[in-house]
């Protein structure tokens, strides 16, 4: 038996479209490298970094959009064809891009390991959205994860500003919080969470089959 046949069909379908797949992986890697280079610089847009976990999702949507997917006219009329398919595609693209960037970072080809570091929260948040979607639906799941991320980072920033009363601008504090969330200690926690969420998602995979589920 071809080992490829052991993978679920949706997973085989993601790289099944060669050009969108290559575009998505190369674009997400480029986003990672760019974020790794600009993050921490004085003039970096803190708000852009706050929204950084969304960038791979947007890029994957662009890569597979338009006429890139020949099956799109049918996909649009199926229950799994919207946000859920986009989240799964993004998860697969990130799962490939992350070790790729880590390996090139270690070899000194992609600047630094920061490039891969930026993608770890993206992967974890994408997996969290999928797990939550299996309970409450994709739209609500995506909304809940986005709000939790934004409120969580804002709350930590606010608390940091209170702790250090000499700070007057929120911008450098937000940058520091984001960089702390990405440092190598945090990476371990993000990776642990991603592993647990992958396990949970595997256990919950049949919930999408249930006609009563979202």
């Amino acid at each position, binding site marked *: 038996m071809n080992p490829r046949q052991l993978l679920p069909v949706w997973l085989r379908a993601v790289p099944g479209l060669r050009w969108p797949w290559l575009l998505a992986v190369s674009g997400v890697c480029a986003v990672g490298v760019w974020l790794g280079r600009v993050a921490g610089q004085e003039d970096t847009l803190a708000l852009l970094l706050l929204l950084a976990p969304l960038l791979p999702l947007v890029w994957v949507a662009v890569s597979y959009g338009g006429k890139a997917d020949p099956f799109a006219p049918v996909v649009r009329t199926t229950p799994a064809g919207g946000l859920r398919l986009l989240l799964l595609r993004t998860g697969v693209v990130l799962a490939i891009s992350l070790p790729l960037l880590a390996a090139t970072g270690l070899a000194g080809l992609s600047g630094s390991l920061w490039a891969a570091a930026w993608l770890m929260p993206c992967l974890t948040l994408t997996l969290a959205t999928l797990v939550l979607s299996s309970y409450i639906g994709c739209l609500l799941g995506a909304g809940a994860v986005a709000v939790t991320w934004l409120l969580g980072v804002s709350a930590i920033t606010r608390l940091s500003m209170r702790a250090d009363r000499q700070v007057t601008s929120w911008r450098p504090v937000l940058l520091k919080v984001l960089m702390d969330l990405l440092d190598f200690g945090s990476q371990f926690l993000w990776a642990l969470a991603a592993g647990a969420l992958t396990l949970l998602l595997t256990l919950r995979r049949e919930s999408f089959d249930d006609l009563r589920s*979202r």
Partner: protein
Amino acid sequence: MISARRVTVRHRRTTAVDSLYLELPHGVHGLLGPNGSGKSSLLAVLATATGPAEGELRLLGRDPARPAERREIRRRLGYLPQKCEMFRGFTVRECVAYAAWLKDMPTRTGGPAVERAVERVGLSARIDKKYRSLSGGMQRRVGIAQALVNRPELLLLDEPTNGLDPEQRDQLHLLLKELSATTVVVMATHLLEDVEGCCNSVVVLKDGRKRFAGSLDELRSAGGYARVIADGPDRL
């Protein structure tokens, strides 16, 4: 099972379907009309690919404008668009299995359903062949199989006989007749022989407006398709 009231479909400033009223029960319904008459636009709306600009639509007793009801409609829907390309590197089995997954079919029942759908379109012998290695007619049959895989209650086919040889057309007609007892089938076509082969009723569109709705005998009594299209008054 399909109820449309004053449904209007627009593409930017062009009105593709204009104030359409339609009541379609179980059975096979032919959608006839010249090119640009609004057949594909109407099917796309019935397939929930896009929403109507105006009017009310109910499919299988549900409102497609509501997300939860739309999802239930989509689980019970089979749709073959006019151009239906699938993944060229996939086998026939993978193409249809992917459609089954997209339609939320349980994994445990997906496998047998895929084989049954492929068998119904006469491609069992080629189930493990690559999609790209098939002829145009066979690729069209894979498209029909993906539409059938979830045993749809609403089946929408846009020119399904394109590229099929006469024998395959007859087989498709027989298949649609079999489905007519339990399924609402709407088939857009420009071939009268498709309508004669399997349809219980006919809807004729021209310039986005309904020109005729009734049985094939009634269409003949009204002077035939060409007459209805050329100068027939709207018959609602």
